[in-house]
């Protein structure tokens, strides 16, 4: 009987610790990256769920360990007849593996569902917006990494190229990411996307922005001397604009940057080894 007691008591303590911690996680911990896009919503939610799982598992293991450490001083005084000699226990082992399988499959399922919703263009746009007649045709923005700057091309509007990322809310956006030299990574923090820019490869990612926001863009992959300075933050940061603001920016940008188009290579998905087009 007493042997079981030293499993049940720590289990009760662990449950209490886990529940208190989980409540704190739900109420107090507001994880980034926020709610600016559908992907950011997913990340915030997944992070919250994983924080709950992690706290529960971690608190349980640590509680059991601390309990057994505290118990050891008492066990040491036990007569030899009461000391346990336990090599294995099929029930406990099966329960342990079963629990971890359930947790892992839950985490994997959560991830797969969120991933499908972020990578398939038909699922990125929220159902509510679709019902209200949102557009499924994406606005294509090409992100070009180069040492040490990101530039953005808008092929549907003549293919002009800017150094500022501007995009509209309430519309599916498709990023086509490539590089002119070494590998970079286009990481737009508030959008909750990170897409590597690799020369010769066109990497695609989708985003649906829910509300206007500042977009901090950094290069995520070590790309040489000024990697740390390859950022668009602060005054240079990107912006997600309302549709009307975006269309006025678009007409400004087309008139400003459009004439320079003749100096640029023709728009192409990749620029190495040979231009490929849609």
């Amino acid at each position, binding site marked *: 009987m007493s042997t079981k007691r030293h499993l049940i008591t720590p289990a009760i303590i662990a449950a209490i610790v886990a529940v208190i911690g989980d409540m704190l996680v739900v109420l107090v911990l507001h994880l980034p990256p926020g709610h600016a896009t559908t992907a950011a919503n997913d990340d915030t939610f997944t992070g919250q769920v*994983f924080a709950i799982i992690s706290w529960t598992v971690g608190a349980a293991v640590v509680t059991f360990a601390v309990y057994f450490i505290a118990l050891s001083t008492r066990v040491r005084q*036990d007569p030899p007849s009461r000391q346990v000699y336990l090599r294995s226990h099929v029930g406990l082992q099966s329960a342990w593996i079963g629990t*971890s399988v359930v947790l892992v499959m839950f985490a994997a399922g959560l991830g797969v569902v969120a991933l499908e919703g972020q990578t398939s263009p038909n699922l990125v746009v929220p159902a509510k917006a679709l019902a209200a007649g949102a557009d499924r045709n994406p606005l294509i923005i090409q992100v070009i990494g180069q040492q040490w700057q990101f530039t953005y091309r808008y092929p549907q509007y003549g293919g002009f190229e800017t150094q500022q990322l501007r995009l509209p809310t309430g519309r599916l956006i498709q990023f086509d990411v490539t590089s002119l030299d070494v590998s970079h990574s286009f990481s737009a923090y508030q959008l909750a996307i990170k897409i590597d820019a690799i020369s*010769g490869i066109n990497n695609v990612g989708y985003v649906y922005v829910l509300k206007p926001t500042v977009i901090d863009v950094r290069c995520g992959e070590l790309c040489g001397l000024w*990697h740390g300075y390859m950022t668009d933050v602060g005054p240079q940061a990107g912006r997600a604009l309302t549709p009307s603001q975006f269309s006025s920016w678009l007409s400004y940008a087309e008139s400003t940057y459009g004439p320079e188009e003749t100096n640029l290579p023709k728009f192409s998905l990749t620029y190495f080894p040979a231009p490929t087009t849609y």
Partner: protein
Amino acid sequence: MSQTAIASGRAPVNFSARRLFLTQNLLTACIVGIVSGVVAYWIGAQLDTTDNGDAGILLGYLVGAAGFLIMLGFANDLILRLRGRPSASLVKSAERKGWTEYFGISLDHKVVGLQFAVGVTFMFLLAGFQAMMIRTDLLYPNGGPWPAGQYTTLVGLHGLMMMFVATLILIGAFGNYFIPLMIGAKRMAFPRLESFAFWLVPLGALILYSTIFAGFGGGFNTGWYLYAPLSVEARAGMDGAIVGFAFIGIAASIAAINLLTTIFVMRAPGMTWSRMPIFAWSMVAVEFLSALAPPVLATALIMVGMDRAVQSSFFEASAGGSAFLYEEMFWFFGHPEVYIFIIPAFGIAMEILPVFARKPLFGYRLAVAGMMGVSLMSWFVWNHHIFTSGIAPGLRPFFMTATELISIPTGVVFLALLGTMWRAPLRFKLPLLFVLALFFNFLIGGLTGVFLSDVPLDTTLHDSFFVVGHFHYTIVGGEIFALYAASYFWFPKITGKMLNERLGKLHFWTAFIFFNTTFLPMFAVGYLGMIRRSPVYASELHGLNVWISVNGFLFGFSNLIWLANIIYSWVFQKELAPANPWESRSLEWQVATPIPADNFDRIPTIVSGPYDYGDANARPVAEWPESGSIPSAVPAT
């Protein structure tokens, strides 16, 4: 040589100029290495048709390394065999050469094990010093005292040197030293290869450090990934990084083949698979990875070297190559590599725990299956490092699930911990304290790994300081704490002296507390968007980074306490340790200290498992052919 000198294991050494300069020794090997390297560099530079001189540098490093190794004596036996002469004997009992043995080729696994332990610990402290330099730079949000190029070189050197350390410290030092003793063998299967694996390590480290000098290229700017095409375009310092990194891979692969063969064919009679110590099992699990993964790395590095030296353009998109190919090849090696770090740490933890819990290891068979499962599954997860690099979208759910599944066999190790601790009369000696700290740290490291395995979340956390925190929790918190535990545990067997308890306690508490206060905030700064390998960061994160840096310095200082303890206890402490201070049942503790040159005068017969603590009727672990000089049994409780 006097009789007493042989008995004490120390021989008088007489030096003369003739002996120093005309025989094969470390000094002549260095001279020949440098001269042959310079000559090869000159020839290569003449042959090189391009302006960058990479062919000369690569050739110089490789020929110089070959000259060093040949002059050290690695070709001697080969030449003898070719000439039809018998090669040198492997029986060493009568030929201990004293301390000079540690500066040359030794066929004694205990000498090589100690060479690894001291050499790699030195590299660990050196690379740790670079970590301090990195943290100094990050005290300032807009770039610290080092220019951007030197900062990335520091990051790369710290990474590559720590790869050396993490790959080889547990396998090279404790694997080589204790596996033959644990399984009842007189030597390793391939003693020359064992020594060869060691000598690649200082050679590789020297080559890596040579890159920081302007004449050798003035640093390299890719971090330890050496991602192409950046590494193809980088300055000449990259050549040294390629050769040095390849040497780690070759050393790991050779050491692995050696240990695997030793465990498979050289076990003492009665040492069945189910009686083998769990540390030996962890070596079986890890060496399949360590033997098979590094050749892929070496291939990728050769391809980068060819891209640099002869413009082969494997990885240059502008000439039809693929930069993505390098990422695939690198991580096909890179993921098994991180389990090469941690599986021996599991082995050490589960080896030490029952000794201090005085209970059998809970779920021995399941723990073995868990380690083998980790080893097997680690081949199927490498794409989680490149989720954002544009892998085929259909592969991402598979690799996400595979990555999360690997936590099941890992969790089994935690069950072994908890089960062994349950109602155990724990003895809180230093090795046990470090094992408990290891499990706490690795718990955090493992749970944060689940965040990174999730593809949507990984798009936020990838390449941020969250990743840095995660892998430092697993590698430093897991493996380096296993190194601490192992050093306190096996030090009496290696040196005959105990490590000082008071200094050890001080080391434990400073290391455990400051490790956690250093790396826990990294999860926060990573979540808040701080990109790794960047000398600049958002000014809002300044306070947290200063906190991390200060605690990092304190963690670094606690390693100096460890070093001071080792030096003090080894050199200045007079008191000798008993042969079996922890009352362990494992075979390596049943031999005398200092360990005889051939380990066992008579090969023992193993009659029971090593973890039958607490069983009053347990048989002694081994029977010796004729009892007498060697203690064969340990009190059961």
